[in-house]
């Protein structure tokens, strides 16, 4: 099992969710985060004063999938989230030790 962590632009959440659904990934967790990479921040001006906003709002999507689905899932995320412009985000894949479904106490692949 692998944990796929994707940080994407907030407006891409729905597209990514659809794309994952199409490759058979049926569960995910999304959270609102803020961050920056090489995109850095941006400047807002209020009443003559400049404000540098370092962090940009992003959405983090996390989903745990079986090893054989990882490549398709990562592919789907990248295609759906890409705009070609700076700040598109990143995808990370991490190993998962165990997974349990709380309601039924199933574990392993059954829990996903």
């Amino acid at each position, binding site marked *: 099992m692998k944990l796929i962590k994707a940080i994407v632009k907030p407006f891409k959440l729905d597209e990514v969710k659809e794309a994952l659904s199409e490759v058979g990934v049926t569960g995910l967790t999304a959270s609102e985060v803020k961050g920056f990479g090489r995109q850095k921040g941006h400047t807002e001006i*209020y*009443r003559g004063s400049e404000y*540098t906003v370092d962090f940009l709002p992003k959405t983090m999507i996390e989903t745990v999938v079986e090893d054989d689905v990882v490549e398709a899932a990562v592919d789907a995320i990248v295609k759906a989230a890409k705009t070609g412009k700076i700040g598109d985000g990143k995808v990370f894949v991490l190993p998962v030790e165990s997974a349990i479904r709380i309601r039924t106490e199933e574990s392993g692949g059954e829990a996903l």
Partner: protein
Amino acid sequence: MLSPPHDTVSYYQQQPTLMKKLLSIVSFLTLICASGTLIAEEAIAEQTTDSVAAVAETAEAIVETTALSAGNTAWMLTATVLVLFMTLPGLALFYGGLVRAQNFLSVLMHCFAIACLASVLWVAGLYSIAFADGCAWAGGLEHLGLKGITTASMAGDIPETVFIMFQMTFAIITPGLIVGAFVERMKFTAILLFSGLWLILVYAPVTHWVWGGGWLMERGTIDLAGGIVVHATAGISALLLAKFVGPRDGFPKKLHVPHSPGLVMVGASMLWVGWFGFNAGSQLAANEAAGMTMLVTHISAAVASLTWMTIEWIKTGKPGLVGIVTGMVAGLATITPASGNVGPLGAILLGFLAGCVCYFMCGFVKAKLKIDDTLDVFAVHGVGGIMGTLLVAVFGTAAFGGSGVDDMVGQLTTQVIALAAVIAWSAVATVIIVVICKITTGLRVSSEDEISGLDSAEHGETAYHLE
């Protein structure tokens, strides 16, 4: 443990020299006030013996013939509601949206608590000092605790209770304006103490000078709705207080954007609507003068908004919402003293100037004077009120479609003298009050509290529980 912002250390170190300056200023002023009172009393005594009989006859006649005007009373009751609405929640939301989310409730609290405090003090004695018969410098104490005021008491052709309430709403909003200077870092106890003392030492006396029969009114100073009494006093005091409290952590480079520009616009919109009560209500009548006052007030707001928007669009590439509504406030503050004398052309010109001048003053105060008057109270209200107070002498002439000003130079001189006196007194009194606050409550919260936010640190509450 975070260390306090480096600027605050130097402010506290200034205290000893401050005391010396303070003592000399206070003794000088006591001398001035005492001699002024003596001179005024002597003159009054001389005239009184000659005209007592004549005055008594006229007074009887007035009492018999001044009936209550239902129309005027209805409007003044309404205007009172509109002006209170400007503070609660207009100003509260306007300021609240401009601060960080973790300070939102503290700003609302400041406006609300000050409104309550001002109300109580107004009844306790401020109304008397402002409007009761007295000397050139302050009213007497005959209406302390509103003693002697009954349902039958009249102020012209409206019940005196209505006049008391209407004026009270002005006493409520003026210290509320000053809040903008010290948001996000001043102690709540200090804010209450400062506001109370400020109302007593600055607001009530100045109101008497300009509106309550005092020396500036006697000299023919024009200030329909508070360019001097409200905006100049609050603006100057705000500037000085911002300097004494010290800048926010991170000023000027690392600042936080307004947490809710939408609320800023909502609050500003309430201010615009309420301002009709503020200016047109100051005519104290539902008549043609009120109509023109409302019209010119509105024009100035609209023109100033578009002017600011245009300048911002040119300078930054984008027209912002916070900017356009700030332009609106500048336009309204500027027209406030002049709205009884200028015509539509004058209003357009005042609005245009307000948008231009106040825009650049915001940057000037923060970048050049390096004072963190956080919500630009001086740049917008102070400068606006001062500009309008001066320019009414020009735009109130028939040449500009105005009325009531025949001698431009003479009136301008009168306006300048009034502003100079009021600004000087506001400044001195602010210094005195700041020293009192420093000694008793302290001015500023700890650096930790400032960074975590006043809502939780000072008020034990959080504005947004988004779950």
